[in-house]
């Protein structure tokens, strides 16, 4: 059963009417198939129109949609021979970030990403995709492994942020994030990063300093959650919607700011409505990006990646 977001109420009503219709037996007065067809047309148009002009705040809700594909779904659909690898070799295995070896289109890849979980039990297990230092240290380990064997890396970013806890701080959350970003930037193999849902602050950037950084059409990427920003700058989290507008967090805004390279289109009505179409869009983008990057030497990949970040924000008009 699909979970509807608050702004999807009219769509939910139409779909419920379509379901009711389908359960009716054809009478003499109305032609059910015709009526269902008409309602479906209306629903499709409404869905298209709604999703064509989502506000930043609505995009956050889509990006956080519980049925949106998560790391495990992407791996299951896009990667063959996947072998998850665990642990940071120092303290624990943090499954808020998962990773391992596998094949993409037959070629070896290392895949790393945040996993949020899909029901209460798995959400708790994966700590809602909020990683502790061990998750970032595992990331560093896997990045080094990829480099050692000259294997390209794909990272899938989906986190509201790194976990704010006592243990996480005691074990060096900040240092772990810094080292992970550093490892991304120093890598001599291709690194393609995709923000698939939420890109929350430092906990996201630690996996996203790639040669190519892409965002799914309705994903968001931000320095702070709009709720957090509102409670600091407006002194009330009620202003989260205003903060979402001010912060410029949508894929469309970030493309304009030259912070990301590409937007990956989502099916009409968002990735959660059609996982299969979503996967195909990602597959196509990944194919192109990896084949372009694989032609470059390790040193070139590292230099280009560094330059890309050094130049970020520098070419826009001065005030």
């Amino acid at each position, binding site marked *: 059963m699909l979970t509807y977001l608050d702004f999807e109420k009219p769509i939910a009503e139409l779909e419920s009417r379509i379901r009711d219709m389908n359960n009716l037996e054809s009478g003499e007065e109305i032609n059910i198939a015709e009526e269902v067809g008409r309602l479906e047309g209306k629903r499709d148009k409404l869905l298209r129109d709604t999703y064509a002009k989502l506000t930043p705040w609505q995009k956050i809700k889509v990006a956080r949609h519980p049925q949106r594909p998560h790391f495990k779904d992407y791996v299951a659909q896009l990667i063959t021979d996947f072998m998850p690898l665990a642990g940071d070799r120092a303290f624990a295995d943090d499954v808020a970030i998962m990773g391992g070896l596998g094949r993409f289109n037959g070629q070896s890849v290392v895949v790393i990403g945040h996993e949020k979980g899909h029901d209460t039990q798995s959400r708790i297990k994966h700590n809602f995709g909020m990683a502790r230092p061990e998750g970032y240290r595992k990331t560093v380990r896997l990045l080094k492994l990829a480099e050692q064997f000259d294997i390209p890396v794909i990272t899938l970013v989906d986190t509201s942020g790194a976990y*704010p806890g006592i243990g996480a701080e005691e074990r060096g959350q900040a240092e772990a994030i810094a080292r992970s970003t550093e490892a991304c930037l120093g890598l001599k193999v291709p690194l393609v990063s995709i923000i698939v849902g939420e890109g929350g602050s430092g906990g996201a950037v630690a996996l996203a300093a790639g040669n190519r950084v892409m965002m799914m059409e309705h994903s968001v990427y931000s320095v702070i959650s709009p709720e957090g920003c509102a409670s600091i700058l407006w002194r009330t989290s009620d202003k989260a919607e205003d903060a979402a507008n001010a912060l410029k967090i949508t894929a469309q805004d970030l493309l304009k700011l030259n912070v990301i390279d590409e937007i990956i289109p989502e099916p009409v009505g968002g990735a959660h409505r059609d996982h299969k179409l979503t996967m195909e869009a990602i597959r196509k983008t990944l194919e192109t990006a990896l084949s372009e990057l694989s032609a470059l030497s390790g040193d070139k990949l590292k230099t280009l990646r560094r330059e890309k970040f050094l130049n970020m924000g520098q070419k826009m008009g001065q005030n």
Partner: protein
Amino acid sequence: MNWITNFVRPKIQAVLENKKDTPDNLWHKCSGCGQLLYLKDYLEVQSVCPNCGFHGRIDPKTRFKHLFNKGEHALIDLPKANEDPLKFKDQKKYTDRLKAARAKSESKDAISVAYGQIGNMNAVIAVQNFLFMGGSMGMGVGNGIIAAAEHAVAKKAPLVLFSAAGGARMQEGILSLMQMPRTTVAVEMVKDAGLPYIVVLTDPTTGGVTASYAMLGDVQIAEPNALICFAGPRVIKDTIREELPEGFQRSEYLLDHGMVDMIVHRHEMRDNLIQLLGLLMKQTKAA
């Protein structure tokens, strides 16, 4: 602190408050022990309380004065940043906040970079200014750190960075977040050149600043009792709804947990840096 200080202090304060003709800036009340200190004396000792040793916050100018030989240094021009890229407005316009911060601090952004001699070596020292919008890291600070790194590489000199920041500058949105990878690249440039990159963590160093260049030093020094963290204590308390351990996220706590190399008193900072840099730069010294 005992019953005498507790008892006497409020009376002194009461006296002061009544005397309207006393300039406000004649006295400083120590945030550590509450003692009233002559501001002039207090500033002379680099804002370290003579009573309890509490390290107050100081600006880049004061740092440079006490770190370089005879205080002599050349300020490095920092490239102008693309201001207000998002046209950000909360309750105030970001451009107005910038104006106010500039008027208050007499500096362009939350970082200053200087080059000069320390001991018998040249060094680049970058200092963040907490008084400028909480030291927050936006493109201006990012540019400052990159300029500092480039200068260090060009002069084959070590880079010493004094961090102080509430984190990323929200008003620059995603572009402030992008200073994390940008400054990391800057640090890498210094390391690639085989030069030391030393971080001195000062109160407070938090958020995206801690999670990038401020934790990537070859040697990590902290001033006493500085708040150093990724997530702030309030955020953690709100998340886990538990009391935090005593001294949590302070320099001494980080030292105990293996997160910094040493804690150095402000008055010993210069000598300490000279010794450390001399060792790392492999300067020979007569036995």
